[in-house]
């Protein structure tokens, strides 16, 4: 059975696209066929983060408008043959994404994939509501910072109102993914702590991704952070989060940002 995940937040720049790519690659590495879908029409970026920007031929709007068939628009990842990308359109306007069109694409994707991960644009407008429309699972990406937490709360409200599941009287499974977390600053009292955010939003935690230069490095290289260096702190956090989403029970940790040289050597040797 295909599962549809929306990666959403309300606020921009919190790490949705980074998380979509990282979780997508992590799920695909479990040998489950995974597609990451960019819903950010007009401002696509998932292709860059995935390192597929030179290979985009068709996009989701082409499929909706009948200019291309879905298999033609899907780009297979060069590193993982279970991972695919459906890019957003860069040139069309946002209204070319229609509810009927999205429904058609989703129905067809569900026939071919185990996981469909929708990268939501920022905001609470059309693009964001269409990205969450068909979701079974929502990953709410939140930074430990007041405006991000507030926007996440807003998005949680939308998930309970505007999704197909909500309209059928069912629930979307919600997971909080805390990203750009700086443990030292939280301990100094300069940043909201994990428990603060959990208490305010009261949805279960699926992972804590530390603030890390490994994320920037991965995006420079055009690789999901879980593929760029699968032993980096953010990669470990995303790999664990993916296992939790897949239903495994994994103890929660905050992978440390700095490992000593020895730790690094041994960690790598052991792999």
């Amino acid at each position, binding site marked *: 059975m295909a599962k549809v995940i929306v990666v959403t937040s309300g606020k921009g720049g919190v790490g949705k696209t980074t998380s979509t790519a990282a979780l997508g690659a992590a799920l695909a590495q479990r040998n489950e066929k995974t597609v990451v879908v960019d819903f950010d029409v007009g401002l696509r970026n998932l292709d*860059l983060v995935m*390192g597929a*920007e*030179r*290979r*985009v*031929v*068709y996009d989701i709007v082409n499929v909706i408008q009948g200019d*291309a*068939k879905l*298999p*033609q628009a899907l780009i297979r990842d060069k590193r993982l043959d279970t991972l695919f990308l459906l890019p957003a359109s*860069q*040139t069309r306007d946002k209204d070319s994404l229609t509810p009927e069109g999205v429904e058609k694409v989703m129905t067809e994707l569900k026939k071919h994939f185990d996981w469909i991960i929708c990268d939501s644009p920022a905001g609470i407008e059309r693009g964001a509501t269409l990205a969450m429309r068909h979701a079974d699972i929502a990953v709410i990406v939140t930074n430990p910072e007041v405006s991000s937490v507030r926007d996440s709360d807003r998005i949680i409200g939308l998930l309970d109102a505007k999704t197909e599941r909500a309209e059928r009287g069912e629930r979307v499974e919600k997971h909080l993914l805390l990203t750009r977390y700086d443990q030292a600053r939280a301990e100094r009292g300069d940043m909201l702590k994990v428990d603060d955010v959990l208490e305010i939003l009261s949805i279960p935690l699926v992972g804590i991704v530390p603030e890390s230069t490994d994320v*920037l*490095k991965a*995006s*420079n*290289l*055009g*690789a999901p952070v879980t*593929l*760029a*260096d*699968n032993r980096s702190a953010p990669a470990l956090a995303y790999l664990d989060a993916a296992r939790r989403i897949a239903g495994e029970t994994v103890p929660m940790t905050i992978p440390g940002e700095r490992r000593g040289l020895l730790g690094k050597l041994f960690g*790598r040797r052991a792999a």
Partner: protein
Amino acid sequence: MSIFRFFSKQTSAPTARERLQVLLAHERASVGHSDLVAKLREEILAVIAKHVQVDGDKVTVKMDRGETVSTLEVDIEIPLNAVRAA
């Protein structure tokens, strides 16, 4: 993932710079909603469709936008009985 670790030992910014230069050169050059390679792709498919009934499922189009050269690969299965009457 040893190959990525190999890369990660070097600095990643030059890679980012090069990727952006190639990408933006193509995006800036795109005229009327599609770049040259995309335009060629559309016209090639249109010409073929004039002569052959093309089944959308049997067409694979691949692009690779490079720094100095791009490649366009159009792969079409043409069954014998698909040729349109002149």
